[in-house]
């Protein structure tokens, strides 16, 4: 076998006990399965709160409540995570994970808290909590999901948003998430990759560093149904 085919995709799920409030661990499962069905070996590493952050093709960060989010940020700041990302390791984050990758975020009222500073994004307390369906136009397609957060995130002018909000609030009612070469993030929490197989393959393709052949699964029907339901 060519060495290329022996690639083992390592997916590191960061602190699932802290950052996994909304089924966010599902994203790791989806990536691992979609890789496996294309013949790639994959391994999901659950990085627990006492563990070293390992080298990995992709880090996943999920959503979390205020206290756990703050603890997650503290633990990551003390780890090799930021250095590894600056060296080119890839991150896909949702919700609280998005917030703690930025420069500052707010928890427990209006107390400002220091993020990891990997992306020039600041999150303040929004006027109201955003709870509901979220639709974001990403590369010409609808990314569908659910958001539940109290943040308002502002990106520095040179930071690209993941996409434009069509339904829901995302960062600020106009844009959602951000996308730098190595850090992608959205407010669509939980198993957003399960609901958007095309976007899961974009994330997977980036992690594997290659174009992927199409893969037909039941998730395609789910995606079509959600897009139709939300367009009504």
């Amino acid at each position, binding site marked *: 076998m060519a060495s290329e085919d022996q690639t083992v995709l390592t997916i590191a799920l960061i602190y699932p*006990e*802290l950052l*996994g*409030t*909304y*089924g*966010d*661990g*599902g994203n790791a*499962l*989806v990536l691992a*399965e979609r890789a496996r069905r294309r013949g790639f070996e994959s391994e999901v590493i659950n990085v627990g*709160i*006492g563990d070293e952050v390992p080298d990995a093709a992709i880090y996943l960060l999920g959503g979390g*409540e*205020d*206290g*756990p989010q*703050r*603890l997650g940020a503290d633990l990551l700041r003390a780890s090799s995570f930021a250095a590894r990302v600056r060296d080119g390791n890839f991150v896909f984050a949702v919700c609280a994970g998005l917030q703690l990758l930025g420069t500052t975020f707010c928890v427990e009222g209006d107390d400002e808290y220091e993020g990891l500073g990997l992306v020039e994004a600041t999150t303040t307390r929004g006027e109201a*909590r955003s*709870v*509901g*369906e979220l639709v974001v136009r990403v590369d010409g397609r609808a990314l569908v999901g*659910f958001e*539940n957060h109290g943040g308002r995130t502002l990106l520095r002018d040179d930071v690209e948003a993941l996409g434009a909000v069509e339904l829901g609030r995302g960062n600020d009612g106009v844009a959602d998430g951000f996308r730098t070469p190595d850090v992608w993030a959205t407010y669509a*929490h*939980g*198993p957003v990759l*399960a*609901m958007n197989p095309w976007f899961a393959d974009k994330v997977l393709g980036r992690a594997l560093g290659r174009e992927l052949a199409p893969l037909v*699964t*039941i*998730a395609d*029907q*789910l995606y079509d*149904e959600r897009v139709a339901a939300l367009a009504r």
Partner: protein
Amino acid sequence: MPRETSFRDDVAKGAVRTVNLLSRLSARGSGTVIGGRVGLTIAPDLLANLARHRDVVLVSGTNGKTTTTAMIATGWGGTVTTNDTGSNMPEGLVAALASSKSRSVVLEVDEAWLSDVARATTPKVIALLNLSRDQLDRANEVRQIAERWRALLADLGDVMVVANANDPLVVYAAELAANVAWCDVPTPWTTDAVSCPRCTKPLDFANGSWASECGFAKPQVLVTTDAAPLVVRGTALDLDLQLPGAFNEANAAMALTALSYVGVDLQGALERVNALSSVAGRFSLRKWRGHRLRLLLAKNPAGFSSMLLTLKSDGTDVWVAINARLADGRDPSWLYDVPFELLRGHRVFCFGDRRLDLATRLDYADVEYVVVTDESTLPASKDVTSVLANYTAFQEWRARTKPC
């Protein structure tokens, strides 16, 4: 002196009964919420007045409220006022209290409403079962509920709190209460309490106990289920439930403990609780189009996990129905917190508004599934088929099936 029931309250109580009756006659819903809403508008302190001079037990928590409330009502014996319709917000509680004059009252209370209801009804006992993620689109975050309970119980005064010692969030909520009976009951789901509610550092779970480096730890227990028989405050009880699963043993232990604080003889209560075989249609055997079905309500990750563990690994077909309507929570993300991998070896038929979300989850879990679009082609089975359904899906299956 507390104000005696006023003429205004009597008018309100009459209005509650009349509107409930009209609601039932006109077949709009179950006839509990509508009437209660009218009553609360007429007299804001109606709940307090209706509860006065009665022995009130409140039951709250994410999972097991309805079953534990039914166990307390059944175990108490005699006529008991209870909200067995499942309407567990103030309107439903007012309707229940207005429907019966019995001095014995047990009410299940929505977690978010517990503070208001407890302050209004001055209960003798509050049973706190567990706290975990459930309908996060509505109630926001589990820890905020724990904070609210903690503030309530710190100054509620003369009430006995019966609390689950294995759930750190419940312990955090109840630790400042004046009187607590801590119960050592099966609690497999602690994923929502991995970081210490006091100091946010990691909690250390080991050997049936748990502790944080800040000193927050599992308290001394008064009630144990780890070794048979069940021991409630020194009394050994031979628990032999008709209802399945370890989670129902936990519910029964807490129900019997609560009853011990309102003066009920435990041996008699035990016999009545042991004999309970179905609660609000849950666990009941039903028939539908030639199928014999066992309806199981499972509406969040902790409840679903417990219910999956009660299924025999005999490869029989399992039906699962998932909706994401208002009463279910609009966000079905929680499907990824349920260990559906336990269903490998079964064939799962997917029903409900969100059957494609379920099918996708099962596909990624490597579980064989069938998306049901035509219900007339379901294969017959000589065995009883388990139907796991979340809240509104369960109500639908209850309505469309008949008792066996």
